[in-house]
């Protein structure tokens, strides 16, 4: 049984309203769980004082791993002793976040026994998050998780848990098998995921098409975004159907094409596929009539991140098009080369995007053995401060006489 029921007038306000309430969730857990009950108490305090009451831990974890556990301690342990430790476990989610009720129930049983009974489905990176437990519970949770076939995800300067959209499982636009690649990369980099060996974190995110449902371009060090090279597949009669049922094809579809590569004469839609930039708009607007082409693969972009330390970055093109065939050797060779160069020369807390900014994309490409191509830039440089590496020298007298 939990300790005394807490008075939480501020949090109670957040039980009202139609959107599902996290306060209700904490209260349900608090009926049986003293940790959840003290969380409620400490959170109410934060709401009164307008500040958080957590301290960051840096040492706790399971034996042998450097990732997967986030240490957390209350700064009010006397008042809220049951959250004096309140560590998080990141559990590597199944690719695409598919579950069976059976697996979820077993996960819940573990967490009922060993933790607060509170979770995040899911954390920002994609892991299933067990929210809040004591140091001595970490090993038992880990043992039971691995018995169930689950493992911890990444944290710290390691390969973070890769994540992806649902891809071919439920989407006709998936240009490659995002779930297969995610599973493969997760397994291939188990050591790098659990044992931090990099200057800072490394994230892989896999989106099946340029709609990028997992925001790969904004937050992955390597963003793998599905695309195609040939013609958009078109069903003329389905286009006509859309027109008949009220879609203004000229205005809503053709008018929004960024490449201006479409024409509509009221009967037939024409696409200049050579000029199409694969933005997805027309396909999104008429999913029954249009589809990505058949020559499908992915574009690999590199270097995005949130602001800390040197400012936010979006990923930029590294490999314009790649076809994926298991065992994905072309990809892993590339990643290995990048990891080597970045590990050797990256500074502490320097994401690969910031590393590229510091050393220059040209130098980076040279180091990893990738040829510079115009697809990599929005435009060539504007400033004339070129660090020329090649120049002519006067032939010496000796050379002339030779």
């Amino acid at each position, binding site marked *: 049984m939990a300790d005394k029921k807490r008075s939480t007038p*501020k949090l109670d306000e*957040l039980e*009202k*309203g*139609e*959107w*599902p*309430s*996290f*306060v209700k969730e*904490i209260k349900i857990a608090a009926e049986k769980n003293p940790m959840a009950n003290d969380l409620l108490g400490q*959170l109410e305090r934060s709401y009164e004082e307008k*500040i*958080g*009451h*957590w301290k*960051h831990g840096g040492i706790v974890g399971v034996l042998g791993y450097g990732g997967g556990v986030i240490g*957390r301690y209350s*700064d009010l342990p006397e008042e809220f002793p049951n959250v004096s430790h309140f560590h998080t476990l990141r559990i590597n989610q*199944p*690719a*695409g*976040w*598919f*579950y*069976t*009720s059976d*697996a*979820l*129930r077993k996960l*819940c049983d573990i967490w009922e026994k060993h933790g607060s009974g509170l979770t*995040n489905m*899911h954390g*920002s990176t994609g892991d299933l998050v067990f*929210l809040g437990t004591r140091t001595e519970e970490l090993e038992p949770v880990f043992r039971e998780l*691995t018995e169930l*076939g689950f493992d911890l995800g990444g944290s710290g300067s390691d390969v973070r848990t890769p*994540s992806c959209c649902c891809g*071919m*499982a*439920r*989407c*006709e636009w998936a240009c490659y098998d995002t779930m297969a690649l995610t*599973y493969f990369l997760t*397994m291939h980099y188990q050591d790098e995921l659990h044992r931090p060996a990099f200057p800072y974190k490394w994230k892989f995110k896999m989106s099946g098409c340029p*709609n*990028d449902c997992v*925001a*790969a371009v*904004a937050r992955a060090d390597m963003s793998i975004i599905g695309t195609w090279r040939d013609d958009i597949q078109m069903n003329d009669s389905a286009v006509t159907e859309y027109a008949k049922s009220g879609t203004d094809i000229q205005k809503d579809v053709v008018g*929004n*094409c*960024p490449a201006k590569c479409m024409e509509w004469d009221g009967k037939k839609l024409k696409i200049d596929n050579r000029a199409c930039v694969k933005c*997805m*708009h027309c396909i999104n607007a008429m999913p029954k009539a249009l*589809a990505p082409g058949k020559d499908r693969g992915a574009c690999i972009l590199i270097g995005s991140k*949130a602001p*800390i*330390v040197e400012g936010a970055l*979006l990923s930029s093109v590294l490999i314009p098009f790649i076809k994926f065939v298991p065992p994905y050797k072309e990809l892993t060779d590339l990643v290995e080369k990048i990891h080597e160069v970045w590990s050797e020369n990256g500074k502490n807390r320097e994401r690969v995007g910031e590393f590229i900014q510091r050393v220059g994309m040209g130098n980076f490409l040279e180091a990893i053995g990738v040829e510079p191509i115009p697809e990599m830039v929005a435009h060539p440089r504007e400033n004339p401060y070129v660090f020329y590496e090649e120049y002519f020298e006067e032939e010496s007298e000796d050379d002339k006489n030779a």
Partner: protein
Amino acid sequence: MPEVQPKPKRKTDIGPPHYENFLPPIIKENYGKWKYHEILRPGVMVTVSETDARLYTVRAASPRLLSIDKIRAYADLADKYCRGYLRFTSRNNVEFLLTDESRIDPLIKDLQALGHPVGGMGNSISSIVHTQGWVHCHSAATDASGVVKSVMDELIEYFTEMKLPAKLRIALACCLNMCGAVHCSDIAILGIHRRPPKVDRSKIKVMCEIPSVVSACPTAAVKPATIDGVPSVEVIEERCMFCANCYTVCPAMKLNDALNDGISIWVGGKVSNARSEPMFSKLAIPFLPNNPPRWPEVTSAVLNLVEVWAKNARKYERMGEWINRIGWPRFFEMTGIPFEKVHIDDFKHAGLTFKRSAHLTY
């Protein structure tokens, strides 16, 4: 002598279970063979395969922070309606995967009874991606779940209906570290600290290693110093950008400041390539106070942005695309947000963000 039971070998590096274990038969049979999908009504979608197999998805809101009791309730619904199969989305919604169209209505009824509205598809506002806030984070400048709950209570009709010109993606991060990578959202709600860490001189010597604190600072704002004969640190205030890295290393460098912490609002970012290229969100409102439990200033600011955009944008035009068409002066005019000094960038390459043409509207 009793036989000693060998300790079971400790399993490590097994990775997640293979996803195939969790796919319903209809997905296994039609994996990679889907032909098209159609949103039938808010929160309900059918995906049709080449062989005309039909998979119905019902999407419901979730607060992300879930009790095991609620997860068990989801599991019961999955058993009742979908042979035990369900999934979660990248925006923390829960999705039930049905093969029998006639079961959709009863499922929606059950979900609503459980307190989980159905919606978030098509031209709507899907769940707000967010971070931990005061529930679990040491560097949070605001709560996350409470702000999200307050904002979504206000915007719920845009989740349960599809009456917006385009999708609208809202995200919240409770400090600059942006665990939620909110920097490319139509509307980003960002917790901000505005004062550098306060050094607790009585504790720093016992709680922290001075060299680690110094080296933790990415901008070299923390310097070693001996104060009254005791080793400590000093903070060069103008170099601090409030990342809380020093506080991560050293609990005696508290950054939280009830008076000065608050929220900023950013607009016009996107990650999708549809029509326009991905773009960052830009600063709209530099500071709103933390006003728990309901953050009325934040909810009304977000509601205003949504409504002004919804009223004026063209079909398919995301927030950033709309602003790019009408221009920033008109954006500030239409939303009634005052433009201030801090709206003008002063970090690296700030000049690229200045207006460098005479293309103006009058």
